[in-house]
């Protein structure tokens, strides 16, 4: 019990490592829960980069050695940034009954997820086979265990996978004394809860508060059900969903006249995605492509120059991981899934059928049909503004289709095993797009809504 409490406390301490983000001018005007969630994201990314650098330099991990430099740096930067002036802002909330209804719905969904995780109804087997294994072993080794990753019989640990989830597990295991195997998967709920205020605050920049709040309620319910249905407790899906959704919501909400600093948080969230899973990097590319295309079509100023920081941050973070691989005799980069051109088109029909069957998201496809229908009903209105979300949603599905077609044998079983969980960012992006498609024409193309703007 004490071990679980300490493990939870270590997760809840992550915002302390990312405090500067909570006072950054681009987010300081946001409500406290959103700023805390942004600091949580930043803390996880900062911890991952620091812990990887430690392993490159041969510095051993302990709770104190990992926490001390981060706390000092975090407090120092936060104090400096807090002095920067931030323009006052008007903030409008949802009406009382909409807020109450949305809170009740989202609350029930979170309870469903939390109880399912806690009663072992939603644990990912991969948590016991490699995500948790890496976390426990790295904590025991006091660093990223290159010997373990190099071994011939560690192929199943997917040694090339980026390190954020194992490092967050290791940090918490170091604080708790050991990885609490029964409890650790329950913390998937934290990533969902952290995403809610961020999605809400960004949607409110583009939608009237009542509509934004209602869309967030739907998003929360759909995603919570999907996480349970796909048994994503303890694997990297919930963190990946958090980072990709937060980055996407921030980029969908940004205004033409926003300063360059407004891309600070999305760049950080994209870095988190890239450090979480291999397909996180695919998502980064797709989101960036959507943002660039939107900016060009909407004739926003300097679209490619403004893209640079968004691309640079994840590249730098990945470079740290690849540097660890290079300095420890591991193959650098990600291993490929067969030859690029080795596509088995004969499986196309069974792949398409399998993919359609396993996109039900635990709601008999209802979670997908609703946003698709609302998107279709919105017509072609302001479609360019939604390109970052549409690019991620459709692009990832096409990427998975392409990947499945590389299997020499019929990949139906692999689709059943993987698609319900890896398709969750697509569902999330689709809901955000459908929510924003309901905004008035003026709201999306001339985004100066007299609502809860913050820079």
């Amino acid at each position, binding site marked *: 019990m004490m071990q679980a409490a300490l493990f939870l406390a270590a997760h809840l301490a992550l915002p302390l490592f990312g405090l500067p983000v909570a006072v950054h001018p681009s987010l300081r005007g946001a409500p406290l829960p959103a700023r805390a969630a942004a600091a949580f994201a930043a803390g996880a990314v900062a911890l991952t980069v620091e812990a990887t650098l430690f392993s490159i330099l041969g510095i051993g991990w302990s709770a104190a050695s990992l926490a001390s430099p981060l706390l000092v740096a975090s407090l120092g930067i936060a104090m400096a940034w807090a002095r920067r002036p931030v323009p006052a802002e008007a903030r409008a909330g949802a009406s009382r009954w*909409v807020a109450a209804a*949305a809170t009740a*719905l989202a609350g*029930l*969904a979170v309870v*469903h997820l939390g*109880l399912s995780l806690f*009663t*072992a*109804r*939603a*644990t990912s*087997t991969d*948590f*016991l*086979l*490699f995500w*948790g*294994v890496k*976390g*426990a*072993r790295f*904590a*025991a080794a006091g660093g990223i265990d290159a010997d*373990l990753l190099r071994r011939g*019989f560690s*192929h*199943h*640990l997917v040694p090339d996978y980026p390190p954020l989830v194992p490092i967050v597990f290791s940090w918490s295991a170091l604080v708790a004394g050991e*990885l609490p*195997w*029964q409890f650790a*998967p329950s913390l998937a709920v934290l990533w969902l809860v952290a995403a809610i205020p961020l999605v809400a605050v960004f949607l409110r920049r583009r*939608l*009237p508060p*009542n*509509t934004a709040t*209602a*869309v967030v*309620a*739907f998003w*929360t*319910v*759909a995603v*919570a*059900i999907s996480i*349970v249905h796909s*048994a994503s*407790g*303890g694997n990297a899906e919930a963190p990946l969903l958090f980072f990709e959704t937060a980055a996407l919501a921030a980029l969908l909400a940004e205004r033409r006249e926003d300063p360059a600093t407004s891309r600070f948080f999305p760049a950080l969230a994209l870095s988190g995605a890239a450090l979480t899973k291999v397909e996180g990097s695919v998502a980064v590319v797709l989101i960036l492509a959507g943002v660039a295309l939107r900016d060009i079509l909407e004739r926003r100023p300097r679209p490619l120059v403004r893209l640079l920081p968004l691309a640079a941050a994840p590249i730098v973070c990945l470079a740290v991981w690849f540097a660890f691989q290079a300095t420890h005799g591991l193959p650098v980069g990600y291993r490929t899934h067969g030859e690029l051109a080795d596509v088995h088109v004969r499986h196309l029909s069974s792949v398409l059928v399998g993919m359609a069957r396993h996109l039900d998201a*635990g*709601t*008999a496809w*209802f*979670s997908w049909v*609703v946003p698709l229908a*609302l998107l279709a*009903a919105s017509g072609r209105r302001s479609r360019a503004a939604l390109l970052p979300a549409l690019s991620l949603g459709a692009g990832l599905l096409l990427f998975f289709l392409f990947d499945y077609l590389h299997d020499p044998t019929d990949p139906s079983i692999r689709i059943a095993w993987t698609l319900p969980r890896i398709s969750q960012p697509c569902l999330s992006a689709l809901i955000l797009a459908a929510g924003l498609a*309901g905004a*008035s024409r003026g709201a999306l193309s001339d985004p100066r809504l007299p609502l809860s703007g913050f820079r």
Partner: protein
Amino acid sequence: MRHGALTLLWLALASLLLVFPVRLWIRAAPRDLLARPTSPLDQTDGAAARQWIFIQKARTVLPPGATYTVIAPTRDVEMNLFMMSLGLLPEAEGLPSSYYGVPTPKIGSRARYVLAYKSSLPPGLHLTRAVFTDGTVSERRSPPR
């Protein structure tokens, strides 16, 4: 569509979605509803849950730094057990008797301890250190090769 109507629509659709988890919880037997799980996989994969519990019990027997191997009636189960054991036994060294279905007896035979899941070991060659519901932990009499 006006924003008021849109708001209502999104809330109504979110309520409808909640029907699916409600059905799930109603279907769960009342006694199991909030039962404390005995493994992380109790409700998702019963077979893997039993394997996990076996390794969890075996960890109480293995001394730190020990070498071990895992044997099971099928190669799939053996692989599953080996993968789980690497996390549950971080201070011991796992030497697989098979890996992804490929037998590796020369490597497995170097292990001091044998975690036999639903399998029996040849008598006389091992000292049984612990017996659990689903298997035994034994130590080889002769030094590992």
